[in-house]
């Protein structure tokens, strides 16, 4: 059996087209993903909003507003704003030159009961509209809170301190949960799906093994079938050799993703490798199973496999990264039996949750699917006499 394994592995290593695609596919597609989705993470980062501030020193809320803006623009404390105190003319000049996203200025009315803060935005601002919305929401929230405090101070001053306390306290409606990495990037989820697809593409080589072990599909299969070696044992040797090759290929691909493309897999890279190994096993056994069904030829079987792989990958979020969530909402069983979804979910769980429970559930799912496909393939081919060769 060792000899069988050795020559099967040699055969795989020397099969140049297969080796090329085994390596090239994850590396090339990964590079393309990086070029296409790399900016997603950059776009995700929040930077402080530059804003021009025009204060009215005679307004009763002036000092309070200045203190608040200074606190929000403190450079050492994760600033929310970059504040420039200027006159109205200079502020308008800054806005027209697109140096700032908006102008914060005091309301003309100095009535303490009226909202003190106003915002002027430019319709010509070509930057991200998100920042303008943030400024708008900030001003609205400030004015709302100011109005509430002013109202309480006028109607029931005794409750002012309690109201202040209540307003300053944040009510937690969510249970805090520590994340493995609080900054899992959006592009990483695409890479998880890509890894899943790369693992599943090992299915084509698995199918080839099934074909070259069947007398009715290849002369080599006929020669192997007349030999005194148990077909199941011989096939498992060949599948193991393929698994080894795929593991080497995928390890190199993962190292490339991590070290060259800077994909963040979290701190548990060994677990990532294990998930990828199980994914390759699932892919190979899927291919072996499909390759063992029926008498149709190599071309048709590869066509069926590619269709299965692409469907599984699509449902796991290769094209739309939220697809897995939709599937989970409408047909969760599909996510339990889709090997691509299991692989990408295992990697996702690893990156997000400190507890490995969900990760190991996915791994168990992958191993179960692999075992079922392998047993199915062996049952379809063992001790088989063919109707026609």
């Amino acid at each position: 059996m060792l000899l069988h394994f050795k020559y099967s592995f040699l055969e795989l290593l020397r099969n140049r087209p297969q080796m090329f695609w085994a390596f090239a596919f994850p590396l090339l597609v990964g590079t393309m993903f990086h070029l296409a989705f790399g900016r997603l993470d950059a776009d995700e980062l929040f930077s402080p909003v530059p804003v021009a501030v025009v204060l009215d020193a005679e307004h009763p809320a002036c000092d309070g507003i200045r203190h608040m803006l200074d606190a929000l623009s403190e450079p050492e404390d994760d600033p929310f704003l970059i504040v420039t105190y200027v006159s109205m003319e200079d502020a308008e000049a800054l806005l027209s030159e697109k140096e700032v996203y908006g102008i914060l200025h005091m309301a003309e009315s100095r009535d303490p009961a009226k909202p003190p803060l106003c915002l002027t935005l430019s319709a010509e601002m070509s930057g991200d509209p998100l920042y303008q919305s943030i400024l708008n929401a900030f001003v609205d929230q400030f004015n709302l809170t100011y109005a509430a405090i002013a109202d309480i101070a006028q109607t029931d001053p005794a409750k002012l301190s309690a109201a202040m306390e209540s307003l300053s306290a944040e009510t937690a409606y969510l249970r805090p949960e520590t994340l493995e990495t609080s900054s899992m990037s959006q592009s990483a989820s695409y890479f998880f799906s890509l890894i899943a697809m790369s693992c599943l593409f090992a299915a084509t080589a698995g199918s080839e093994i099934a074909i070259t072990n069947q007398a009715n599909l290849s002369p080599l299969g006929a020669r192997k079938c007349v030999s005194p070696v148990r077909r199941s044992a011989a096939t498992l040797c060949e599948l193991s050799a393929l698994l080894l090759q795929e593991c080497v290929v995928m390890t190199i691909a993962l190292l490339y993703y991590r070290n060259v493309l800077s994909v963040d897999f979290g701190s548990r890279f060994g677990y990532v490798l294990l998930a990828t190994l199980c994914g390759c096993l699932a892919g190979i056994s899927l291919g072996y199973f499909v390759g063992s069904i029926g008498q149709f030829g190599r071309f048709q079987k590869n066509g069926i496999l590619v269709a299965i792989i692409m469907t599984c990958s699509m449902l796991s979020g290769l094209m739309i990264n939220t697809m897995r969530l939709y599937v989970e909402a409408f047909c969760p069983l599909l996510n339990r039996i889709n090997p691509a979804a299991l692989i990408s979910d295992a990697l996702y769980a690893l990156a997000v949750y400190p507890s490995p429970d969900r990760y190991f559930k996915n791994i168990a799912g992958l191993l179960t699917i692999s075992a079922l496909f392998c047993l199915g393939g062996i049952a379809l081919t063992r001790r088989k006499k063919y109707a026609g060769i």
Partner: protein
Amino acid sequence: MTQPIIQIESLVKRYRDLIALDHFQLSVEEGEIFGLLGPNGSGKTTTIHCILSLLAYDKGTIRVFGQEMRPDSYELKRQIGVVTQEVAVIDELTVYENIDYFCGLYIRDKKLRRQYVEEAVRFVELDEFQKFYPKKLSGGLLRRLNIACGIAHKPRLIFLDEPTVAVDPQSRNRILEGIQELNRQGATIVYTSHYMEEVEQLCTRIAIMDKGRLLAAGTTEELKRMIKKSEIISIDILDLQPEQLAAIRSLRHVYEASFDGHCLKILCSGGTHNLLHVLEYLQAEGLSFGRTYSELPSLNDVFLEITGKELRD
């Protein structure tokens, strides 16, 4: 009486409406080079696949070494070597590695396997090509590698399914000599071909089959004795009158004579000195004649007479 090494009785194999083997009978004795002769599609390869338990059949029994052959008859399979019609080698392995791989499916002992592989390499004269990949080999060399992969483990029974298809004459001769050598070393050989000259030259016993049926079986001489024709005489003559042709037809043992394009062709059935009798008649008639040939019937004649068609039709 020794038990036949292969015994097939009433074998029926259907492919939907087509009957590939029709109550086929066969018996191969140990030490024979047994030829299965028949045109393409006559059922030769189907017979071998049924014997090897690759194909399911509808009816009949097959016994190899006195035992029923099943897909899990591993001990029986260990004693059998198969050289398939299509070249079945692994393109990514060298000549030596291919032989070692296939021999390794039968022989576990590493030392013995190495010895067998080296002998097989020498046997098919591929010593100089041991490190070559199959794609670099010519058609003839590739066929020899295919043979080496099937026989390296020194089987007692070897099936050679048209091993000389698309092979140059030089390689073909080497292959045929090799098969005889294997037989001398003790292997029983079942050889299928539609090249009658090969079968006639090589096989100690022959079965002629067509449309899945066994038409005749025996040694070459036995087969030839089964047909009416025993001698074909061809003589170049300038001119021959119809009455002279009729007189020739009436000669003893002559059962057919024709004259076409200055060539007199006479078919004889049995008897001896038939050529002498014809020449005596021609001399007596004062007919001058040129080149004269006398041929014994070939297997093609046997096949033609049994089936009414040429073997290569």
